[in-house]
């Protein structure tokens, strides 16, 4: 469980996060949604500790990250995995070497055990054997995302962060990635935090949704509660697309 308590963050007087409090639960996919520029990425980077927050607490199962020393942050980071928007695979390494990298740096496994674990993770994300020895530039965007997931989970992290996992993917591939993240989260009982503005994934895997508007938390709930929240700002966001207006009308008609 990650608990945010009154998190404030500003850049040169421009207050981006104006006191966000939220609880991100274990074994569930926690989605952070909101309009472009609302502060989602800043919130996620603050939670991870890439941004120093001005005030507030970020409790990782009770351990407050902002008040930690560098050494402690470093060891907490070994419990984190992160999926970056562009994949952020190391392009001087092959697919296999990318996934092996965290093991080489932080585990005491011998080469054969490492290779076994790499294979395990790569087949968990349904990647074909023929891709293992290719470089990231030689595989498709969707495959890169999957390799990035494999790399993020190779050390069995407790906390998984995904910044817009669907950007640049077609609807079908994003569905596969979404489901994969959801399954893995339940399987390994991780605290997964996903940053997105894709309404399809919100409806598909939104166990716990945090809606951010202009730097404050406007609403929190599950995808079932989303359509009938009664929150005007959230409705503006959710029903911006025609498709979801129709979904709501259809739901009304059925009642």
């Amino acid at each position, binding site marked *: 469980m990650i608990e945010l308590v009154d998190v404030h963050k500003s850049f040169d007087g421009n207050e981006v996060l104006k006191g966000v409090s939220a609880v991100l639960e274990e074994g569930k996919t926690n989605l952070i949604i909101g309009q472009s520029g609302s502060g989602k990425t800043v919130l996620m980077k603050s939670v*991870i500790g*890439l941004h120093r927050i001005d005030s507030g607490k970020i409790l990782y199962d009770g351990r407050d990250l902002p008040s930690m020393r560098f050494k402690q942050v*470093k*060891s907490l*980071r*070994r419990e*984190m*995995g*992160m999926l*970056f*928007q*562009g994949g*952020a*695979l*190391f*392009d001087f390494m092959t697919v296999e070497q990318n996934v092996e*990298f*965290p093991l*080489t*740096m*932080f585990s005491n496994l011998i080469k054969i055990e490492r290779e076994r674990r790499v294979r395990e993770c790569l087949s968990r994300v349904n990647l074909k054997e023929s891709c293992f020895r290719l470089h990231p530039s030689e595989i498709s965007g969707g495959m890169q995302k999957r390799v990035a997931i494999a790399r993020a989970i190779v050390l069995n992290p407790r906390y998984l*962060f995904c910044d817009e996992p669907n950007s640049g993917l077609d609807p079908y591939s994003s569905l596969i990635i979404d489901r994969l993240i959801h399954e893995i989260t339940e399987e390994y009982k991780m605290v997964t935090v996903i940053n997105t503005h894709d309404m399809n994934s919100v409806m598909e895997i939104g166990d716990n949704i945090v809606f951010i508007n202009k730097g404050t938390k406007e609403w929190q709930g599950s995808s079932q509660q989303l359509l009938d929240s009664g929150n005007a700002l959230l409705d503006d966001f959710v029903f911006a697309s025609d498709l979801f207006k129709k979904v709501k009308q259809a739901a009304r008609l059925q009642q």
Partner: protein
Amino acid sequence: MQGLFTSFFKNVGRYAMLMSRVFVLPDRWRETVRRTFQEMSALGLNSLGIVVIISIFMGVIMIIQMKLNFSNPFLPPYTTGMATREMLLLEFSSTVMSLILAGKVGSNIASEIGTMRITEQIDAMEIMGVNSANYLIFPKITAMVTMMPLLCIVSMAMGFLGGYSVGWFSEIITTQEFELGLQFGFRPFYVFYGIIKCVVYGFLIASVSSYYGYYVHGGALDVGRSSTEAVVNSSVLILLADIVLTNFLLA
């Protein structure tokens, strides 16, 4: 002018901070050693070709110019060989060669690290808990500091080879005359002087270029700009270091 001043001190401060993160004990020694050998090959051995070619040509050209412009019946016959030798050992094989490598290796390092920065690969390392500055930059600096003296020695040898080849293939100078010049008043310390300078230049090229790459933000355009800055600034620093070192070692 004031802006220039503050930006100078800001850069020096950030450079010092980066170096304090580079020079710590690596997370994994084996990995660091492996990466160092890779960089020695990528940055050092891959520069061998350009060093050989340029050094041979410089040796040839120095002899020809010297003979054409300074030949004088009152000068002893060893003048040409001796002057060529001193120029190669003192400045050419260390400073001029390093300036050329600053262009080749410096832009390579800055654009490689800069690309890793803008594609979030460096953030990815930091999130894993890897000290990215140490992992990426330390092997590059170590590789350059060890390979540059070797390249320097190769450059000296190839420069002399160039000089000999003028004797072999033309009437401009005889090999005996050139050889006499090479040996006349030879001071072995000059070879060490060149090597010491190369160690310093290797450190400057690798660390300054890494610095400009590491702090890129923006897009591909900014990576290009930072690699230009890396080359310009490491070249200027090489020349400044040359003045300081010459004062220290020879004066």
